[in-house]
C-alpha cells in the first residue's frame, strides 16, 4: 500500500519539477519501486525486466537525451 502511494507521489513530482535531471532521478526511483510492486504482485519476470529495462535503459536514455539537449525545462 505504501509503495502505491510512493509511486503516485513520484509521478506528481516528475510532473511538477522544472529540472529535467531531477525528474530523471525520480523517474528511476519510480521504476525501481514499480519493479518492487510487481514482485509483490507475484510477477517476478516482470520485476527483473522492469528493473533492467525501466530503471536501467530508460533512465539512461533520459540522461543521454538531457546530456545532448538542455537540462532546465523553462527556457529564457
Amino acid at each position, binding site marked *: 500500500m505504501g509503495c502505491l502511494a510512493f*509511486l503516485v507521489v513520484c509521478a506528481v513530482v516528475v510532473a511538477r519539477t522544472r529540472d529535467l535531471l531531477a525528474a530523471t532521478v525520480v523517474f528511476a526511483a519510480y521504476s525501481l519501486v*514499480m519493479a518492487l*510492486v510487481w514482485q509483490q504482485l507475484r510477477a517476478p519476470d516482470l520485476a527483473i*525486466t*522492469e528493473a533492467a529495462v525501466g530503471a536501467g535503459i*530508460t533512465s539512461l536514455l533520459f540522461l543521454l537525451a538531457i546530456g545532448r539537449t538542455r537540462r532546465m525545462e523553462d527556457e529564457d
Partner: protein
Amino acid sequence: MGMPLALFVRLNYMAAITLFLIGLHVLLGHPNLIKKVMGMNIMETGVFLFLVSIGYARHSAAPIMSPGGAESGLYANPLVSAIVLTGIVIAVSTTAYTLSLTIKLYEHCGTLDVNRLERLRR
C-alpha cells in the same frame, strides 16, 4: 457509503488509473518534449500496473512450477505477465525513438518547447 469501501478494496486499480491519468496529463499538457516522454512512460507503466493487478490473486504464488510437479496451488495469472512484458518492450522502443527525434529536433532548432517548434516550422 458503498463507494469508498468499493474503491478501497480495489486500491491497486485506483493507483494504476491515477498513474495513467497523470501520465496522460503530462503527455498532453506539458510543452517540454522530454517531459512529454516521461509522461508517456508513466502512462504506460500505469496501464501495466493495472494489468498486473488484474492477474494477482490473494495468497497466490509466482507462476514458476517446481520440477516435482506435485502440488497445484494457487498461482498468479501468467498471461498478464506475458502481455505486460511485451508492453514494456514496446514502451522502451517508443521512448528510444521519441528521444532520438527530440535530440535531432533540438540540434536543428535549439529548443525543446513544442510551441516554439511549431512557430519555427511555419
